[in-house]
C-alpha cells in the first residue's frame, strides 16, 4: 500500500510538472530554478544530458552565468547529472526577451526528432541592472573646458569643505586648478612645471587624484601636488609608471565597467568603449561614446564619473569632457 501511495504521489508530481503553465517568477535566479524544476522530470529517462546554454538576451555575460549556475545547481538536486560528452542528449536553454518579459526557454530532447518545450518568464523590469538591456547603460559626455593650447591630462575632484567642483588641468608647462563659482570655472591657482621639464614633443601626462593630493606624471618627472587654496608642487626625476589609459566607472548594477579608447590613432576620431574583458556589453550601441578626435587621456576610477581629454580634429582645440554613465531614465 505504501509503495502504491508513493508511486501515486510521484506520478502526480511528474504530471503536474509536465502540465504546469509557464511560471511567472519573482526574480531572475528564481526563474532559472523554476525552469530547472519544470525540466527535471522530463530528463529522468536520459542517462547523460549536455547543457547548451545560450544567452540571446541583453543580459550581461555575468548575469547569464549566474542563471546558468542556479539552473545547473537545481538540476543537480533533482539528481540530473550534466555531462560535457558531445554524444549526450542536448538540453538547450535559451534566454530571450520580449518587449516586457525575459523568457527562459528549455528545449528537452524527446523521442524521435521532437523536443519538449518549457518556459519561465520574468518581467524585464525585475531584472537587477536591467538598464543594461538595449542600451544597457549610456555613456554621456559633458564639455567642461576647451582651449587652443595642448592639455595633457585633466582630473576632477571636489573641495569637501566648500562642496565645490575642482578641475585640474595639466598643460605642457603648467598645472592649473579651477573651481566652480556662480556656474563658471574660475582660476584658483596655477604652478609652472618648467623648472622641472625639458622641452618634449611627448604629449603624455597623467593626473591622479589621491585625497587632498594629486600625483602628476610627465615624461621624466614624477610630481606631487597639494590641492589647497594654493597649489604646492614637488617634483623628482624618474620614469613614471604610467597607468593604463582606462576609465573605470560604476555601472547601473553596481559592477565596475572598464572603458578604453578605440583606435589609438591620433589622426582619426576616436571612441570610448567597454574593454573586451566581459565587463561590458561591447555590442550595445549606447555603451560606445564617439568623440571628435583622439582621446589623449582618461582619468577616474570606480567613480560615477570620469574625465577624458580629447583633441578635436575639426576645431583643433583640446577639450575636457566629464564622462558619466546613465542608467535608464
Amino acid at each position, binding site marked *: 500500500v505504501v509503495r502504491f501511495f508513493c508511486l501515486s504521489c510521484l506520478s502526480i508530481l511528474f504530471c503536474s510538472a509536465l502540465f504546469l*503553465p509557464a511560471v511567472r517568477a519573482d526574480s531572475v535566479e528564481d526563474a532559472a530554478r523554476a525552469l530547472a524544476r519544470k525540466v527535471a522530470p522530463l530528463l529522468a529517462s536520459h542517462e547523460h544530458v549536455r547543457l547548451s546554454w545560450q544567452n540571446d538576451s541583453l543580459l550581461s555575460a555575468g548575469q547569464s552565468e549566474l542563471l546558468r549556475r542556479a539552473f545547473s545547481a537545481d538540476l543537480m538536486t533533482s539528481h540530473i547529472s550534466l555531462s560535457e560528452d558531445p554524444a549526450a542528449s542536448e538540453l538547450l536553454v535559451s534566454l530571450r*526577451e520580449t518587449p*516586457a518579459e525575459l523568457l527562459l526557454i528549455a528545449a528537452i530532447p524527446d523521442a524521435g526528432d521532437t523536443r519538449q518545450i518549457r518556459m519561465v518568464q520574468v518581467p524585464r*523590469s525585475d531584472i537587477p541592472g536591467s538598464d543594461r538591456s538595449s542600451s544597457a547603460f549610456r555613456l554621456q559626455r559633458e564639455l567642461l573646458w576647451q582651449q587652443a593650447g595642448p592639455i595633457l591630462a585633466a582630473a576632477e575632484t571636489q573641495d569637501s569643505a566648500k562642496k565645490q567642483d575642482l578641475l585640474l588641468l595639466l598643460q605642457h608647462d603648467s598645472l592649473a586648478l579651477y573651481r566652480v563659482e556662480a556656474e563658471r570655472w574660475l582660476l584658483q591657482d596655477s604652478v609652472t612645471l618648467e623648472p622641472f621639464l625639458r622641452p618634449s614633443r611627448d604629449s603624455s601626462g597623467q593626473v591622479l587624484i589621491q585625497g587632498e593630493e594629486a600625483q602628476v606624471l610627465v615624461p621624466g618627472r614624477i610630481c606631487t601636488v597639494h590641492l589647497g587654496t594654493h597649489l604646492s608642487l614637488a617634483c623628482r626625476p624618474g620614469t613614471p609608471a604610467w597607468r593604463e589609459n582606462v576609465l573605470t566607472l560604476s555601472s547601473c548594477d553596481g559592477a565596475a565597467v572598464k572603458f578604453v579608447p578605440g583606435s589609438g590613432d591620433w589622426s582619426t576620431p576616436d571612441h570610448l568603449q567597454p574593454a573586451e574583458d566581459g565587463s561590458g556589453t561591447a555590442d550595445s550601441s549606447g555603451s560606445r561614446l564617439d568623440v571628435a578626435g583622439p582621446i589623449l587621456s582618461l582619468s577616474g576610477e570606480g567613480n560615477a564619473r570620469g574625465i577624458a581629454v580629447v583633441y578635436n580634429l575639426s576645431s583643433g582645440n583640446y577639450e575636457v569632457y566629464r564622462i558619466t554613465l546613465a542608467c535608464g531614465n
Partner: protein
Amino acid sequence: MRCIASLSLAGTSLLVLGALAAEVLTPSAGAATRPRYGGTLRIELQTASVTFDPRRWQTGSAEAAAGEQLGALVLDRLVSLDNHGRFQPQLAIEWTHDAAFKRWQFTLRPGVKFAEGTPLTSAEVAAALQLVLPQTRQVLASGNAVVLQSAEPLPDLLEELASGRNFIFRVQADGSLAGTGPFVLDDPSKNAPSNPGVTGSRLSLRANEECWSGRPFLDAIQVTLGVPAARQLYDLQLGQADLVELPPDLFHHADDAHVRTWSSRPVELIALVLDGARPAVQDARLREALSFAIDRSTMAGVLLQKQAEPAAALLPGWLSGYAFLFPMETNIERAKELRAALPAGMLGTADPLRLGVDAAGDVARLLAERVAVNARQAGLNLQVLGRGTARTPSSAASNATPSPDVRLIRWRVSSLAPRDALDSLTTAFHVPEGSGAASSSDPEQLYQRERALLDTRFVIPLVYLPESVALGASVRDWIPSPWGEWHLEDVWLDRPATPAPPVPAPGSARQPSGGQGVHP
C-alpha cells in the same frame, strides 16, 4: 518617453554648470546641443488615406499602422512601455490587479485636459476603452479611477494597453474625436466618422500648448498623404521633407546617397494564407509541399536586398521570444516527394492554384511571383492573380467571381501583447486554429498554439519586414521605440524656424501622387 523627456529636463540642471562653463569660457563652442522649440516637421506617407479614429482601424493593415502612428500625436494611452521593458505612467499614474489578473484598477492622472480645455474624466476614459477593447471586458469609472473586469485572466493587459488602438479619446457631438496628446489636428472634422479618411491631401497638426506631458518642441507637423516612395526620398534629398518612408527596394539607394535612415525591428509579416473553405487546399500534403518549396532565405536576402528576415513563425522573435524554436522548413526534395504523392488531376498539379495578392506595393507582387517560381520547382502550379482579387472568404461568398485559393498577405504587428497579436492575425485572415489550441498569454501555451497553427499550414510565413524611414539632417532627438513608435513629441529641428507654408486647397497644389516631379 514623455516622462523621460521631463526627467531629462529636470536633470539638465545638473548639467547646467558644465554647459554654462563651456559657453562662458569657450565662445567657439556654438553647436546646438540642447533642444530647440519651433519649426514644422514635414512628413510624407504612401498611404492615400488615414483616419485618427482607432475604432476604424483594421488591425494589421498599413492604413491602421499609419493611423496609429499619427494617432499617437493627438491621443494618449493609459500606459506606455519603454525600451527597457518598464511600463511608464501616461494617463494612468498607478495600477493594481487582483491575484487572478481579472480585475485591474487604474488611477488617472489628475489635471489632464483635452486640447480644447475641458478636463478628462474617468467616465470618458472608461467609455473610450469600452469602444476599443473586446466586448468581453467591462470597463467602469470609479472616482478618479477606471476598473477593468474580465472573465479571463489578463496578465498581459499592460502590454495591450500600451499599444495598438487602445487610445483614450472623447467622441464629440459631431462624431470627431478629442484627445489629450501633444499635438492637435488643425481640422478636427478630419477624424469624424462621416469622413472616410483624409485622402490625397495634407494634414496639419499644431503643438498642444497645454499638454499634460509638456508642449512638444515642434510648433507643427505637416503630413502629406499619397506620395509614392521614390518621390518621398527625392523630396527628402531636396530638403522638402523631414521624415519619409523607405521601402526595402529604396533602402540601399538611400544608403548610397548617404541619407540618414532608421529601421525598426521586423514588425510586418508577409505570409501565405490558404483558404480553409476551399476543397483545393484540403489535402495536407499539398500545403506541406508548398511550404517546403519556398526559399525564404533568397526572398529576404536577394529579392528584398537583406532588408527582411526569413520567417518560420507568425510572431517575430522580438515579440514572442520563442520564434527561434520553429525550423525554417525549406526542402525542395521533400516538396517534390509530397507533390508526387498527390492524386493526379488535383488543383495545383494540373490546373493552377490561384494566388491572390492582398497587399499593395511592388514587394508583395515580387514575392508572390517568387512563390510561384518556388512552387513550380516542386512541380506545383500556381497562378498569381492581380491585386484586388484576394478577398476574404466572407467577401468571396457574396461575389460570383471565384476567389483565390491562396492569398499573400501583409500583416503589421500592432500589439505588444503576443496573445493579442496572434488573436488579431488569426481573426483578420480567418486562419483556422490548430487542434487543442486556446488563446492564452502564457508563453508555453502561446507557443503550442502557434505551433498548432503552423502545423496546419493554412498559414505559411514567408518573411518579416522592418519599418524603415529616412530622416532629414535637421531632425534631432529621433528616439523611436524598437517596434516603431516615432515619439515625435520629443523631436526637435536644428534649423531656423520658418513659418509653415499655407495648406493648399485640394487640387490647387502639387498633387502628391501625381508624380509631376523628376523621380530619382
